[in-house]
């Protein structure tokens, strides 16, 4: 959501037992002993820039912002905070879309922006060891001289950091073939909530003991603070080509996606846009999108020239058999990038046609694609708001952009209902409330729908195993029993909500 607002009630999560916070003056004077003066901010004008991340609707100034410059300073800050019982919210570039880096009113925001050094590129072992504040794209740029790159490519890759990617288990448009952050990270180094050094994973393909790395990746900064990451680099495919195919029926487009996978093809990218989105992006980038289409598919193949020729031919056969109304294959790199330009600019294009938009992020089984799009069309009428859809069709990850005007409180209210409805419908269809943006504060309520009280308790116990005092990014990801009770939802799995027509806020 990009609607600026003061503190929002939906974001507040009161713990089941509210701890007593130490006075701000005590926290700041303790931090002053471990940080240089320029690395500690606490006046309102200095901490205000940190009051939100990419989810700007939820804002909260932290007690203080620490900007450590070395691992020993991170360790010292964590030890101070642990001793005093002060929450710590780690922060990368602040591009997250679910409020995962939203500060805690009584906590310290730990900005890791200064950890921006590439430590080592090993072209033979095909790994990059970088500090957590290195930007995603900077890794691929540093590896490029050896024909290598880092595969996960979230849309924000020019700005987002690898530390943030680890926290969110970020995806991108190529993860069906190349995997998520989890599949491309070999090890992380950092600290526990107590300030004890920690290394998970290694340069080897597995590590002794439980696979803690796989649970720390995607834990939204709630289990450990990561300062250094070692990632896999893979050979850059020499060729990439893209097919743009139009369909005059959403269901046929959905079937074509299933048919490509059923034919044994794993495309490098498989994206879909619906008609409202096509209109919005074409008006913005003029890429020559088919304005008559109900849906456009972008199907990319990458690899050696032989592989790509073979795969493009096979995909073309499938798409034609599935009844596409127009099909174009990129002739060169310029045209391929042009095909992608609209998809990559879906968010700014939506920003041009509406004062505000809220981006959702659910995942559904691919076969339910047409069903959810038709359900969303009905919701547009129910809530009186428009919605444009982009879709990582290959892996079932849907990004509906609900268009609204935040200056109209009723539109904001209807938008939130609309969003919650999409998430709950996704869960009913066998999907999940967040595919790649994370829970943060935004989807806490939806977690009550997806998980039972026992499952949420188990997750809370897991957190406590890493962070017994629950000081790392408290209040995110897992909603408290009390909050879910207030949300007033019955737990639903695979069934229908009771009284689906009733508003529940």
């Amino acid at each position, binding site marked *: 959501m990009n609607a600026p607002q003061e503190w929002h009630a939906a974001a507040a999560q009161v713990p089941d037992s509210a701890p007593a916070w130490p006075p701000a003056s005590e926290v700041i004077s303790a931090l002053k002993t471990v940080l240089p003066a320029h690395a500690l901010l606490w006046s309102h004008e200095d901490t205000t820039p940190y009051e939100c991340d990419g989810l700007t609707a939820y804002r909260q100034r932290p007690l203080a912002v620490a900007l450590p410059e070395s691992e020993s300073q991170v360790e010292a800050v964590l030890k101070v905070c642990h001793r005093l019982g002060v929450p710590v919210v780690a922060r990368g570039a602040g591009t997250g879309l679910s409020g995962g880096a939203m500060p805690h009113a009584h906590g310290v925001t730990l900005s890791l922006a200064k950890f921006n050094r590439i430590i080592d590129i090993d*072209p*033979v*072992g*095909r790994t990059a060891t970088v500090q957590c504040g290195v930007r995603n794209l900077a890794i691929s740029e540093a590896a490029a001289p050896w*024909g290598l790159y880092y595969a996960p490519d979230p849309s924000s890759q020019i700005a987002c950091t690898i530390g943030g990617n680890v926290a969110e*288990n970020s995806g991108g448009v190529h*993860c*069906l073939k190349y995997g*998520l952050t*989890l*599949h491309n990270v070999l090890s992380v180094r950092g600290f*526990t909530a107590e300030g004890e*050094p920690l290394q*998970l994973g*290694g*340069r*080897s*393909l*597995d590590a*002794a*003991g*439980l*696979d*803690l790395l*796989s*649970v720390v990746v*995607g834990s939204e900064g709630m289990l450990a603070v990561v300062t250094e990451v070692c990632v896999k680099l893979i*050979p*850059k495919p*020499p060729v990439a080509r893209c097919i743009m195919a139009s369909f005059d029926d959403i269901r046929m487009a959905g079937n074509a996606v*299933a048919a490509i*996978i059923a034919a*044994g093809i794993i495309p490098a990218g498989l994206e879909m846009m619906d008609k409202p989105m096509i209109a919005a992006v074409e008006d913005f980038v003029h890429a020559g999108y088919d304005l008559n289409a109900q849906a456009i598919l972008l199907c990319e193949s990458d690899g*050696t020239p*032989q*592989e790509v020729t*073979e795969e493009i031919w096979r995909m073309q056969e499938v798409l034609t058999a599935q009844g596409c109304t127009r099909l174009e294959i990129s002739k060169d790199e310029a045209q391929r990038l042009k095909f992608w330009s609209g998809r990559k600019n879906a968010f700014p294009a939506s920003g041009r046609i509406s004062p505000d938009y809220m981006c959702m992020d659910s*995942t*559904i*089984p*691919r*076969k339910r694609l047409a069903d959810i799009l038709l359900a969303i069309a009905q919701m547009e009428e129910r809530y009186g708001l428009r919605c444009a859809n982009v879709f990582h069709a290959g*892996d079932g*990850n849907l990004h509906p952009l609900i268009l609204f005007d935040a200056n109209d409180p009723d539109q904001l209210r209807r938008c939130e209902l609309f969003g919650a409805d999409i998430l709950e419908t996704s869960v009913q269809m066998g*999907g*999940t*409330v*967040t*595919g790649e943006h*994370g*829970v943060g504060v935004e989807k806490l309520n*939806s977690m009550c729908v*997806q998980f039972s009280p026992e*499952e949420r308790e*188990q*997750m809370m116990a*897991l957190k*406590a195993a*890493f962070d017994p005092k629950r000081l790392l990014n408290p209040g995110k990801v*897992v909603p408290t029993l009390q909050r879910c009770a207030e949300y007033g939802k019955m737990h639903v799995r695979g069934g229908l909500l009771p009284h689906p027509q009733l508003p529940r806020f």
Partner: protein
Amino acid sequence: MQDADAALDRIVQQVREAAHARTALQICGHGTKAFYGNAQEATPLSTEDLRGITAYEPSELVVSVRAGTPVHELESVLAQQGQWLAFEPPRLGSAPDRSGTVGGMVASALSGPGRAQAGSVRDFVLGCTVVNGRAQVLHFGGQVMKNVAGYDVSRLMAGSLGILGVLSEVSLKVLPHPVATATVRMSASQAEALERMNAWGGQPWPISATAWWEGTLVVRLSGAQAAVQDAQERLGGEAVDAQLAQAFWQGLRDHRDEYFVAAQARLSQGERLWRLSVPSTCLPLDLPGDTLIEWGGAQRWLCTDAPVQRVREVAQSAGGHACVFRGDPPADGVFAPLPAALQKIHRQLKAAFDPEGIFNPGRLYPDL
């Protein structure tokens, strides 16, 4: 369906009673991996009645399957749709229809020849149902590729050797079987083989498996027909007959290759079969014994009489770890000891899932 539901009810009941009485349980399927990890004596809890595929939609690339289902059964269903488990889990034991269950496959997290390129068991786990030590039936993850709702508990289960709970069902990503495959072999010293494996790994070639033993380097290519052919020409070496190649990779995968047979025979002479997981670029390790290399250099099997401490030190200083895969177990356990900070998290995690300490005590580490 009803049988499986009743079986799950029985397991929940057994867990509840064991937790109440604080008696240890030993989770078992076919028992083909009973040798793996530290030995234990406890009341068996069988998952064998949790059988069957609950959902499989080939175009979704996802299968959901109960934990007691034989891997062999799952694989034949996938094969009918031209799909497979790309991490190539080993099928151990002598009876083909009792060569391991899905639960054991996930809990042990052993992967086969394709691991370096395709990923490990945990990379393919999308969701699971687990009975924790409070006898609660919990679902984590799901049946979709991208899912960041809550902590990724289902992937934590991979390789946990049953110490956190009883897996009752898992959802796995599956992949289409590659269109074309070819295998070549060539002579190479260990050092040459390691150098080549790493150099080739940096090329956009469809190398899907590598193995080196006794001066021979074997490479498998899998992918589009044209790409496999092209890479085969670039690699050189001698093409291996398709049937022979398939038998070789299967033997390697299922530990029936002559290397493993010979290693098994030497266990009685006091040697141990170690699995060393190290960075692929590590030079030949300074250890005596017979070495087989897989995973582009990242997995090294070693049959040796070298002292435990020596093997562990060499693996650790190389940036990896070593475990006694078969043979006489060291007093402090078969897996590499953990640093203190990790030990603490392990203990606390164990308590978070299994507060009474009933599941597979000692199997992963003596104090867990």
